[in-house]
């Protein structure tokens, strides 16, 4: 796994190919849109998809905690797919999550899917979080600088010699970073969609997630060449 270095607002950050952001100086790991219990939400709607999505997501998060040993973990909202999510969490997954919150301080930024703080989960619930001049929130705010957010589940299409490749990605310029969704069942929104593009009027870069590294392209290049 090779993380890509990124200088942002005077700080040195790293983007991990697993879809997380690492801030070494602040000993902080940032993830977005875990959407825990999306599987059971689908089941409730009559689609009995495999029930291991929370487990899958938490195991991947545990790996990152082992690798980076952060003091703080910031979850950028939509950590649960809906307000009923915490109650539906299976006992085993509940202990998986508890084990994680014992190893680091969790900041649960509130999202639009889970506006209330997660019940029975350790950590701090807050509408947004600020640290050393960087602001962390669920959904990007127009013209706000030094902001790291999630919400959009960005993905990018790259035209290659042998057809199009579509991957989840980070989007970044000097003022904003959007994180890809970390949850096992989270889909994506094309970075060319106006909702995302509007936040990057002067362009930016996308970093597509790969097996062991990221692939970086100018935002303007992520379309047919």
């Amino acid at each position, binding site marked *: 796994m090779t993380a890509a270095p990124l200088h942002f607002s005077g700080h040195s950050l790293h983007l991990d190919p697993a879809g997380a952001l690492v801030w070494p100086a602040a000993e902080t790991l940032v993830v977005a849109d875990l959407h825990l219990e999306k599987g059971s939400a689908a089941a409730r709607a*009559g689609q009995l998809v*495999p029930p291991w999505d929370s487990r899958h997501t938490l195991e991947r998060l545990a790996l990152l905690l082992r690798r980076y040993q952060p003091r703080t973990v910031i979850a950028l909202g939509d950590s649960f797919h809906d307000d009923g999510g915490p109650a539906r969490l299976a006992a085993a997954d509940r202990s998986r999550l508890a084990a994680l919150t014992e190893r680091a301080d969790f900041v649960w930024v509130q999202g639009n899917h889970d506006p209330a703080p997660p019940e029975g989960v350790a950590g701090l619930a807050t509408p947004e979080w600020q640290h050393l001049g960087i602001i962390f929130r669920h959904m990007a705010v127009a013209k706000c600088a030094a902001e790291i957010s999630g919400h959009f589940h960005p993905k990018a299409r790259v035209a290659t010699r*042998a057809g199009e490749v579509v991957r989840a990605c980070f989007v970044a310029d000097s003022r904003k970073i959007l994180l890809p969704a970390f949850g096992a069942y989270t889909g994506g929104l094309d970075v060319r969609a106006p909702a995302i593009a509007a936040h990057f009027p002067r362009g930016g870069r996308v970093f597509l997630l790969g097996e062991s590294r990221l692939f970086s392209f100018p935002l303007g*290049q992520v379309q047919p060449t």
Partner: protein
Amino acid sequence: MPGTLPELFTTWFAARGWSPRPHQLALLHAAANGENVLLIAPTGGGKTLAGFLPSLVALAHPRPAPTLHTLYVSPLKALATDIARNLMAPVQQMRLPIRIETRTGDTPADRRKRQRENPPDLLLTTPESLSLLLSLEDAPRMFAGLATVIIDEIHALAGTKRGDQLALCLARLAALAPTARRVGLSATVAHRKPLLDYIGSGAPARLIEIEEAAPPEIEMMLPEAHIAWAGRMGLASASAVMKRIVASGTTIVFVNTRAQAELLFQELWKLNADTLPIALHHGSLELELRRRVEAAMARGELRAVVATSSLDLGIDWGGVDQVIQVGAPKGTSRLLQRVGRSNHRMDEPSRAVLVPANRFEVLECKAAMLGIAARELDGDPPGPGGLDVLAQHLLLMAASAPFMPDEMFAEVRRAAPYAELSRTDFDDVLGFVENGGYALAHYERYRKLFRDSEGRIHIAGVRTARQARMNIGTIVEAPLLKVRLAGRRGQQLGEVEESFANALREGDTFMYAGRLLRFLRIRETTLECAEGGTGSPAVPAYAGTRMSLTTNLAARVRAMLHDPVSWGTYPEEVQEWLRLQQAYSELPGPEGLLVEVFPREGRWYLVAYAFEGRNAHQTLGMLLTRRMERLGYAPLGFVATEYVVGIWSANEPHNIAALFDHDLLGEDLEIWMAETSMLRRTFRNVAVIAGLVDRHHPGAEKNRRQVTVNTDLVYNVLRRHQPDHVLLRATWHDARGGLTDLARLQLLLNRAAARLSVRRLDRVSPLAVPVLLDIGRESVRTPADEDALLLETEALVAEVMAQPAPRTPRRRTVRKNDAPPLRKSVRA
């Protein structure tokens, strides 16, 4: 006397100058004996009337309490509508007291309701609509009086998922109406027994077969210029095709892909000096446009129509004078079906012209002509029924009425595709429908079925039943966008795949529905465009399974190549090509496998003349590449055509025998296949059909309550946590069949083991030229391949943008250990 035609009918026949055909009487006789029947007849044999005749006779007198007497099921909605219209003629002329109605997805709600309360005597429908009717609570009442079920074009249904669905419905009908007879109507097929079993549905069925009176007259037509080395479009023959159209009454020009249809249509219109009415017909065009073309064709207003398999089936048009097939015929059965679309009078031969697009296709056309002359049909016998289809069916049956698992298992096994279904598979499928069937983690709260104290299965509630009915069907489309001309009254032209639309930028032009269009924008699920534009237009391509060269035809081509005596009938250019090959290398033969190895422009090329079809060759190419990598030959890429596989590498491949060893289909295959885009696509289809995720209903995505889960992500999670889940088993089953053609690969490896002929050459051989020209076409991909592509593109873009590439030098593949560790730990 039973089994003979009443006077009313003989008079009607006589008034038309007709007399009943022997097979029509035979069917009448079978009806009197209560027998199930499979009628195999060439097109134009009065097959449909034969199927209906016994019902018309039985219904000639008013019945005291009318019930649904005859159910007709056709694979095409349009066919059901046309047949209903055609049946009206005898019914009206003989003043028969018979009510005929159709029931398809287009039937308005009020008529559906009336059909349930007061069913017609004859109902014409499709497998999907039948499935829906059987899922209703009043299905037992509606079908109780059923006397006959007629299944049309059964050869096109058996062996497909729609065919599996229909077979299950037939088994259910047999339970609801035990005395009802089944009548199957089929074109000539290679395998009769599976169709007889299909019609029998657990009971015997009688075969009635009529031979074609006059064999078809088929000739080959070559382009006026030289015969191309490669390419599949056949556009060089457009002027020759145009001359044939001008010289004849009405022509159907069959092609193999929708893109080819668009291109050839444009090419013909460039040459259409007299502006003859020539139309276009393919499966992604708007239904309304297609219906208009079909209607114009039926009225005899068209001189020609360029069509894909969208016109393989359908109503007899009578007036078609010739069929022209442009491009590879692929198989004799399919060719016969297409040829049969011309001249629907039984005593006169059908006429067809084959137009090969390249040299290999000249051989293939010749092989097809010989195959037809020898009456050798091809096609694989239908395989076992899909477990995903069974899952859908079980939920729908529970929606109709509670059932006991043992009885349902027995009923399902009466359906021919499920005759060998194991109890374990049945129980696993039922378990999946019930609560997801996940090990150690059931969705008890969200179960769709529950069991009462006697073990009877019930559906969870009306909401579950409604959801099941919303998701009926076994055809799963790739994500599609509507194509519409911009403007308030912009005409809808049809649909293209999302990936094609995504590759267009404003101002780009493309060919579609026979027009030159300019891309404007994508708005939600619609691609908006305007007429006209400049530049070289793109042509939409469609994924989906393309038909592969059949085993029989491939064997004929190999035999012909190896027998110079037979070359005399080929064009001189082709003969010369083969003579050069013979002199320089050797010709592939009916036995063994020929492999050529030669250097070219700093690379090594390996060409295997496998002749097992494109699907099998793609799998073979991937497996060989992996093995070459392990042997240190540094493969760089491969290309698969219908006839050969070509691989290029940095180092010379030495040990060819090791490459083609019989263990090639071992563990490598599973590992590779599990990662491919092909398996993910297969899983998506299985997941939708089995009801794991909801079918995508255009327009319904606005519903905020709907949770959409990407099936690729589900696949990843399921594979990791329960690799033997019944849906993954169903996925593997599908993938091993059509898409990878593993059985054909096995045959190939056996041939290679028996006699492997390796030719090391100084340069490219004549026979290898076409495959080199085909390099650059798409192939099957895995995430690792995609990473390599991204890496390459990243470097390329960085180079073009004249800024330093982010760290990495250009490399062929990325391995986990290549990258240096980030650091030990953030926290010291």
